[in-house]
């Protein structure tokens, strides 16, 4: 009950955020955004046809009306139809979000799990050779551009010039094997790029927790390292770790895989967003932006609830910021 009430309050408190995001994006993407008129009229349009298209696109209506329309769309989750394919935006989202999730999850899980693992090893040997090796590699990983990693892995693992082990592109989840084949290279590229950042972040968190007074207390009372590690270090590191993980989720669901999906030809929401950016498909962009904002509010709520689970000092009753 407490959680429910809290959630409700928190979601309500998220409304200004959603309003802000939608207002800014509406201004930039829609109001001052691309004018599709001349792409939708034929080669030799008459003034009448131009006016018709402009009216169908809503360009002739005042700002407030159109923004209100957008808000109504958010509330009803009906974002109209894509200007490129005329497909309903809601059916596009329903089709593409699961694909993006399936694509992003392995990389996300691996990237974070390996990150925590490497961070632990580095933190345990901190100052030593192993630590330097891990953190040096992390720095190298961080210095490689995502794009370079994607191109590199594709040439290396998929092309006929390289090892030729995986499909160059495309998406197939009909069998687990097909899924693994298609998800491997994108996952490797993601992990390669994310691992450096994750390791550094988690190492900092863990080292911070390792130097806490209560860790020294536990040692002073002869508690064995494994127990200290689990109860004093890991449990206390959960708050920043959970925050990082949960706040990545909206981006994974909505747009995190934009580059990946367009490069590997995967029909997820990233690819759709990419196409929408290139063609200026406003209904799709509006939906993506609004959903991300809503997911951020939900993510914030989730992190708060997770905090509550891992840290007794946090109470949901009090305002947390």
């Amino acid at each position, binding site marked *: 009950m407490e959680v429910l009430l809290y959630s409700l309050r928190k979601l309500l408190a998220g409304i200004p955020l959603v309003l802000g995001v939608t207002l800014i994006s509406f201004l930039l993407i829609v109001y001052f955004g*691309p004018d599709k008129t*001349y792409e939708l009229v034929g080669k030799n349009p008459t003034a009448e046809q131009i006016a018709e*298209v402009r009216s169908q696109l809503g360009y002739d209506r005042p700002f407030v009306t159109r923004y209100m329309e957008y808000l109504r769309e958010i509330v009803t989750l009906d974002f109209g139809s894509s200007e490129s394919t*005329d497909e309903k935006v809601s059916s596009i989202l329903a089709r593409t979000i699961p694909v993006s999730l399936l694509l992003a999850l392995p990389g996300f899980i691996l990237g974070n799990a390996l990150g925590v693992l490497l961070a632990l090893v580095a933190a345990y040997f901190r100052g030593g050779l192993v630590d330097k090796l891990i953190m040096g590699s992390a720095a190298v990983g961080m210095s490689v551009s995502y794009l370079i990693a994607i191109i590199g892995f594709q040439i290396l693992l998929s092309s006929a010039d390289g090892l030729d082990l995986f499909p160059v592109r495309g998406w197939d*989840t009909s069998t687990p094997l097909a899924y693994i084949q298609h998800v491997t290279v994108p996952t490797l590229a993601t992990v390669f790029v994310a691992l450096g950042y994750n390791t550094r972040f988690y190492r900092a968190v863990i080292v911070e927790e390792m130097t806490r007074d209560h860790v020294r207390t536990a040692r002073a009372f002869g508690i064995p390292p494994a127990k200290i590690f689990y109860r004093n270090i890991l449990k206390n590191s959960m708050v920043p770790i959970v925050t990082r993980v949960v706040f990545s989720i909206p981006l994974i669901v909505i747009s995190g895989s934009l580059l990946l999906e367009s490069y590997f030809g995967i*029909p997820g929401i990233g690819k759709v967003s990419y196409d929408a950016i290139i063609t200026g498909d406003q209904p799709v962009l509006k939906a993506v932006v609004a959903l991300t904002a809503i997911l951020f509010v939900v993510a914030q709520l989730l992190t708060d609830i997770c905090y509550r689970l891992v840290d007794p000092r946090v109470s949901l009753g009090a305002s947390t910021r």
Partner: protein
Amino acid sequence: MTALRTVKNIALCFVAVSLTAACEGNGNGSSTPTEVKTFHYSMRSSPGSLDPARVSTVSANVMVQTLYDSLYAYKYLQRPYELKPRLAAAMPEISDDGLTYTIRLKQGIRFADNRAFSNGRGREVVAEDFVYALKRHFDPDSRSVAAWIWQGRIVGLDEWKRNGADYDQPVKGLQAIDRYVLQIRLTRPYPQLVHNLAMGPSAAVPREAVEFYGREFSVNPVGSGPFRLISYDATEAVLVRNENFQREPVSLAEEGYDPITQGQYGLEVIDGRRAPFIDRLEISFIDEGSARWSSFTKGNEVQMAGVPAEQVYRVLESRDPVVLKPEYARKYHMSTEKEAGFVYTAFNMDFPETGYHPDPVRNERNRALRCAIMKARDWNARNDSWYGGLGEIFPGIIPSSVPEFDPELSRESVEYDPEGARALLAEYGWNAGNLPELVYSSQPGPTSRLFFEQFRGWLTNIGYPKEKIILKTYATFADLSKAWHNSEEQLLSLGWLLDYPDAESSLQLFYGPNRSPGSNSSNYSNPEYDRLYEATSVMQPSAERTALYRQMNRMVIDDCVVISGLSRVGIALWHKNVVALPDNNFVGGQFLQYVDVLDKAVGSAVR
């Protein structure tokens, strides 16, 4: 912890959903799972809307041609292109004044089965479906992009729109005389009409499907073409054989088969059989040329692809004639295909800096400036950089893909002549100080940028100051398009694809009344040209008309309004076990119905 568990469940649920979806996709059309003949094709970009009224890209046209049927079509193998009846029983009966076209339809042709029909079974295609399809272009709700083709040409159609576009109201010039006879009455002769009736936008559309799906008709196509769509997203379309597609057997002789030039493709195996020969057609949309190429060369993915320009030198033994290197020739069939169109750079004559100027002296100097810029263009370098050196460079705006092409025309306007350009500038008093700024507009993206840099490089070679050549990029094509349709751009690099094999299709680009927002982006205005254009527009093909076309072509060249042109030549490769001859011009997507896939063993035997 409950929150976490819920998240996990949702994730699992997504897995389940997409797995079942995928299974469904597989289940369709695979009644005998061992014998699904699949052809895996690739295209450069996602087609967008599949509504015949909204076809605006090459890939959309391919899709529409495989899903829908039009009255006429181009013969599969005949070159130069020649029309044949498709849904029509014969070529149209044309009245002596050239204004009334009577077209008889084949009987017993049925649309693909679809739940839009009352019993789910595709009904017969009738003349009324064509009436409906053409009317749709004039219905604002269908957002047609092709209305301009018929604008002011069919008696009563424009009035029909003005009266509220009510489908129950008849149009005088567009009638189904009976179930199988369509009659079109024109306001003035329109020699290109039959060509237009072979294009995607004229395809038969069942009214009940449009009404059933509403706006989403665009992604739920219902036609009478050889295939029907079972799944479609931004990266792939999956089509299966339309069970209701029953046509007369293929006759290679009638399709214009030439054993001398086309003998190496093994096309004989389709002679006398009923198309389509494959059960399943998977079309991948791959933007990146390199990814498309990798996917093709892997062997088990895409089975047919164009060679990306940057790979041409790697793949070819020689360019003239085009010969594959042996390691490729062993594995793949090859054809070369010249586009029915060209790329060019147009000046916008509305800009007094480089275009028309009220002061006749300056006007003349501007013409000299444009001519100098034209001479500075190194077409060969452009061809070499971007088109694998295979493109065909020709003067003017009538490319060799139309019968009116003039092989005798002077090539001076496409010759690289920096000295001449410098001399011309000097002669007309242009120098680094008084040369006007040139704003070059483009889409974003690395290739467009390099086009610009190459353009700038040529101009700096003739003494144009680097900083006076400015790049203006638009975030989206839509905005670029808007700017040029509103005559806001000084210089534009464009590509033009002809709609039909008739030079009229490119000559209209310089017809005065077509000025912005029409297709005359140069805003060229020459009364003499316009007079000739109007005269030729009602003329049937003839030597006389060709002479007038060529005269118009020379005007455009002499006025230096456009730096033109180059027809790109593509090399298509396909696996040896695929029997096909691809075409991206007027046959377009229709070639897909003639594709056959042999067993691997047979495929190598053919070689």
